[in-house]
């Protein structure tokens, strides 16, 4: 594979940039693979990459019904963090942080990882106490956490509304300095290019229409491009998991919901961190192009529509303006929606299933992007070794029936309440 480097860039500059190879091929599916990954999003691509890199399994197909980068990997707000309290989450997402830090080098693709720090605002004494507890839990798991008071926050995010007479005054915040953002398209393209170079077939515009299961064992999948055999199949189709589950006669602890995001017109640099509102659900960062990238609540009803309604956007941006009054002066550039698996405890599922050779990766709620590398890494391990890695043992499918939930937010099963 052609290496992306400053030398090659200069060389190609003299060659009118006509010598660049395609980043990944467009193969027809073979009759049989060692592993089939359904879903060519970030998690599916990362899974194929780590299957090839860590487990030397390269006879792998990724089946994608749309195109690479067209799903949630290109629709999220690019936030990366590991500021979780529960051990299962903290350790898993910290593994992800480690992989993020070396991703551009590993993939030979600049994913523009920017550890600019993420700050969760607190609006009461009780919330400061709760953040202090979460910060301590994070530190015990080796994750960086800083509790900031109001005066410290004024220095680093001066454009927040620090007035005394607001409904939700700012008391302080919890910061994870190593959190940040990355360019989401580059993550998809980088994983796709490397996976392809190691022999993985990326088959786009190929929809799964059924499964071939004999005596409780998976034998292959039926697709719009014909039947493909494989003894191991991994599902990585966040948002559409329940649709595939129905084909498998499985009912999962998941509902598919709709989440919107938006960006403003680009402005000069004003916000150096990712900041989240603590009295509702709103988060904001500034992209390298200068757009304010914003998101918040789910639309709140089951949906596969990938587009939302204005009342939710209005509600979310009202919180944004309460936090950053200057946002009210900006024009909206784009809004869009994505659909996601909302699991019943807010945590993902990476596990085997009752069907031999069928593996499940789902339930990412609205936090899947930051998990991309660790999700791929642990799912590849689960598929290759036919058992979960210790990092994803907690993300089991049976934790709901056994009561071993990982309910980080303590919200219970009402996934539409965010």
């Amino acid at each position, binding site marked *: 594979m052609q290496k992306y480097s400053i030398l090659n860039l200069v060389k190609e500059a003299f060659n009118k940039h006509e010598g660049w190879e395609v980043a990944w091929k467009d193969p027809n599916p073979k009759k049989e693979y060692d592993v089939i990954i359904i879903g060519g999003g970030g998690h599916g691509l990362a899974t194929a990459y780590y299957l090839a890199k860590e487990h030397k399994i390269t006879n792998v197909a990724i089946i994608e019904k749309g195109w690479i980068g067209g799903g949630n990997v290109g629709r999220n707000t690019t936030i990366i963090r590991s500021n979780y309290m529960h051990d299962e989450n903290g350790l898993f997402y910290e593994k992800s942080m480690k992989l993020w830090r070396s991703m551009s080098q590993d993939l030979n693709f600049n994913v523009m990882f920017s550890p600019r720090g993420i700050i969760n605002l607190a609006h009461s004494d009780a919330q400061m106490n709760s953040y202090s507890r979460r910060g301590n839990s994070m530190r015990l798991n080796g994750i960086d956490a800083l509790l900031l008071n109001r005066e410290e926050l004024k220095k680093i995010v001066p454009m927040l509304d620090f007035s005394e007479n607001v409904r939700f005054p700012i008391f302080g915040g919890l910061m994870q300095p190593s959190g940040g953002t990355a360019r989401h398209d580059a993550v998809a393209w980088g994983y796709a290019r490397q996976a392809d170079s190691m022999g993985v077939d990326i088959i786009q515009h190929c929809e799964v229409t059924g499964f071939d299961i004999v005596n409780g064992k998976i034998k292959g999948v039926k697709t719009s491009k014909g039947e493909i055999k494989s003894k191991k199949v991994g599902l990585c189709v966040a948002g559409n998991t*329940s649709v595939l589950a*129905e084909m498998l006669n499985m*009912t999962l602890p998941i509902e*598919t919901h709709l989440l919107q995001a938006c960006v403003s017109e680009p402005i000069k640099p004003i916000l150096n961190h990712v900041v989240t509102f603590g009295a509702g659900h709103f988060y904001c960062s500034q992209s390298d192009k200068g757009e304010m990238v914003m998101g918040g609540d789910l639309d709140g009803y*089951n*949906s596969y*529509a990938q587009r939302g309604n204005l*009342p939710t956007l209005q509600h979310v941006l009202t919180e944004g303006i309460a936090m950053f009054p200057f946002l009210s002066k900006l024009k909206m550039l784009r809004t869009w929606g994505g659909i996601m698996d909302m699991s019943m405890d807010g945590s993902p599922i990476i596990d085997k299933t009752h069907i031999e050779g069928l593996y499940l990766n789902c339930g990412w709620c609205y936090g899947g992007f930051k998990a991309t590398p660790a999700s791929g890494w642990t799912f590849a391990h689960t598929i290759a070794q036919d058992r979960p890695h210790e990092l994803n043992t907690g993300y089991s499918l049976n934790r*709901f*029936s056994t009561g071993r939930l990982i309910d980080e937010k303590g919200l219970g099963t009402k996934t539409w309440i965010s």
Partner: protein
Amino acid sequence: MLHIKCPHCGLRSQNEFSYGGDATIKRPELNKEISDKDWDNFVYLRKSPRGKHLELWQHISGCRQWIKVERDTLTHEILKTLKANEEI
């Protein structure tokens, strides 16, 4: 904006309603022996179909009644609304 026809009040905007989830889920009967599997089904497992979905909404800023809504989860089209005690 969704427009939901409340069977008690008529056509109203989505802002007046709050969502209550899948209306086909039945609570296990209390005076019978209930297995862990039954509780699992009731509390956690959802079909979450792409297409027709029968769901509960509450007209919380209106008549405050719970209602049933049949809605397409792919197009957001509202196909039918019923009183909470009516069957489709």
